[in-house]
């Protein structure tokens, strides 16, 4: 790793999350959707790891699987030194406070029949033995921390705007003093002028409480702003993982290159002069991925070997991981 001073808080090895497909009269298992298919990464303490990719690439499934919201197919996940990959949901319960989640859609992730106070208090009810007065104080403190007016505690979610609702979701995630928060597209449903408010809030909270984030997003420019390191996913696998500056300046994997060149830049002169890499076709189905390299059907630099051998995900430069035959020594991958 590039940054030797920090130790990993989250360590994921060869994580797989396959969902069965049932069909026919007897609902027999006829196949599986390989939503996450063998990914490995670390999240260092206090950093923000950005996880980017297009819809259906498995980035949200990955975030949920790391928090064990699913029973994973195989792999190891350790958070803060504890292996949780194979723990039962009952045994996970006491560990849950250290890891929390902020969801994409603040409309759907807040119960419309609960007041804001009740929503933020719920984790405290479940996991702590605080008195009613202590809980009320804690809720008010949390509302201050995320920039909500504490006088609105008795109001219902519908009385708040999208950005404010996302603040409620963030306050709820912070209630149990977590170390690790998975932010699953926290700004995707918000307007541009509101996005910046929420991103700045997340950064302030990270500094204040020493939080570690896994920031899942499809917005490459926002990830460049918030993330320390960035992982790019395609069809259930990480194709490239690198420190932010290196990834945006000099992407190694052809998919990362295409993805970055597809982002529309708010500069008319630049937008009209740069040559874009436009990918042909669509993402293959994760229930029937291509045989060798997942990207070989759309890759502009495809070679014969890509259709025969799946490239290994390996460190090609200090801190830079990539899974591509262009950057790995073919003799080692063949063996």
């Amino acid at each position: 790793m590039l940054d030797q001073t920090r130790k990993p808080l989250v360590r994921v090895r060869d994580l797989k999350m396959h969902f069965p497909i049932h069909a026919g009269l007897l609902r027999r298992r006829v196949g599986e959707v390989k939503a996450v298919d063998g990914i490995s990464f670390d999240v260092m303490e206090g950093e923000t790891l950005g996880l980017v990719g297009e819809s259906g690439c498995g980035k949200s499934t990955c975030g949920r699987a790391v928090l064990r919201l699913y029973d994973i197919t195989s792999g190891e996940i350790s958070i803060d030194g504890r292996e949780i990959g194979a723990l039962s949901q009952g045994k996970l319960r006491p560990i849950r406070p250290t890891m929390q989640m902020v969801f994409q859609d603040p409309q759907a992730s807040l119960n419309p029949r609960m007041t804001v106070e009740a929503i933020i208090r719920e984790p405290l009810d479940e996991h702590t033995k605080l008195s009613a007065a202590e809980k009320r104080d804690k809720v008010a403190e949390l509302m201050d921390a995320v920039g909500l007016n504490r006088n609105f505690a008795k109001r219902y979610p519908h009385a708040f705007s999208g950005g404010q609702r996302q603040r409620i979701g963030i306050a709820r995630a912070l209630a149990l003093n977590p170390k690790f928060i998975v932010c699953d597209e926290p700004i995707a449903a918000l307007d541009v002028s509101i996005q910046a408010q929420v991103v700045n809030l997340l950064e302030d909270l990270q500094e204040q409480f020493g939080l570690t984030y896994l920031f899942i997003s499809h917005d490459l420019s926002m990830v460049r702003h918030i993330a320390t390191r960035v992982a790019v996913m395609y069809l259930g696998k990480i194709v490239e993982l690198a420190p932010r500056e290196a990834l945006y300046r000099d992407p190694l994997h052809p998919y990362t290159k295409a993805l970055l060149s597809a982002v529309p830049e708010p500069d008319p002169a630049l937008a009209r002069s740069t040559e874009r890499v436009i990918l042909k076709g669509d993402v293959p189905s994760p229930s029937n991925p291509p045989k060798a390299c997942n990207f070989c059907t759309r890759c502009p630099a495809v070679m014969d070997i890509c259709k025969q051998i799946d490239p290994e995900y390996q460190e090609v430069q200090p801190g830079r991981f990539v899974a591509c035959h262009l950057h790995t020594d073919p003799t080692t991958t063949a063996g």
Partner: protein
Amino acid sequence: MPNVAAPVLDVQGLKTVFKTRGGEVHAVNDVSFSLKPGELLGVVGESGSGKSVTMMSLLGLLPSPPADIRRGTVMFDGKDLLKVKPQTLRAVRGGQIGFVFQDPMTSLNPVYTVGMQIMEPLRKHMGLRKAAARNRAGELLELVGIPDARRRLDDYPHQFSGGMRQRVMIAIALACDPKVLIADEPTTALDVTIQAQILDLMLELREKLGMAVIWITHDLGVIAGIADRVLVMYGGQIVEHAPVQDLFRDPQHPYTRALLKTIPTISGERAKRLTVIEGQPPLMMDAPASCPFRARCDVAFDRCARENPPRFDVGHGHDAACFYDARTGGPRNA
């Protein structure tokens, strides 16, 4: 491309109000713009800024009640679309004016084949026979870049991916050789690599067919790449209007300036901290008697609270609805 030809579409003083139980919502306030033949006009704004309602109003697509188009004229092909009979308007919609909506999933009918849906406008508006319409539908699908187009006419929408469905929507909109194509956030629901494909296709088609396009989006990046001229909307009004280069190089309205500063980029300098536009967009429950951006503006002064600024011409086809003159750094003398 900018030229001196008469506009194909000319909207003047459009005002649309929604009557709700909580009172009237002033969604579109005194919006005026024109569209020249063959030009691509970008319309940017956040949700609730009135950009979609403006386009729906001029095509008579809003249910009334609750919508009420109070004032304005929409001149198209020598007629005022707000005054013509419903059947005349029906002939224009989907015929000479085509449109593409944001979500290709909900705007295609799941129980009809894609072929039938492309053939529908061809038979209704152009009076083509079934065989001729089918032939033309195959050509259109080919035009929008769907592989194996003729065979796919018999497929249903769920057999297409999101990007493919949006191509089908574009094929339907193009069916009757429209003079004007209105595209309302057509790439917002798509992934960036698919968005890049669609943008590329649109530019190519415009070149080939020479129609005028109104492209509604909240993404300034998309606008920078494709538009000739841009309208910026806020609080139901046009706050700035400029050729695309001028808008990005020399924005005159504080909202445009703030918006350009808020968005992070993937190249160039990375800001330590994002610039924030504090506060919330206006609720528009009253007819605007003051500037709608005043509460969030960093250069607002007393006059902004008393009057709603008109659009001031700042030269070279550029105007901004602001009493503050960014070039002199003081109040405007008007």
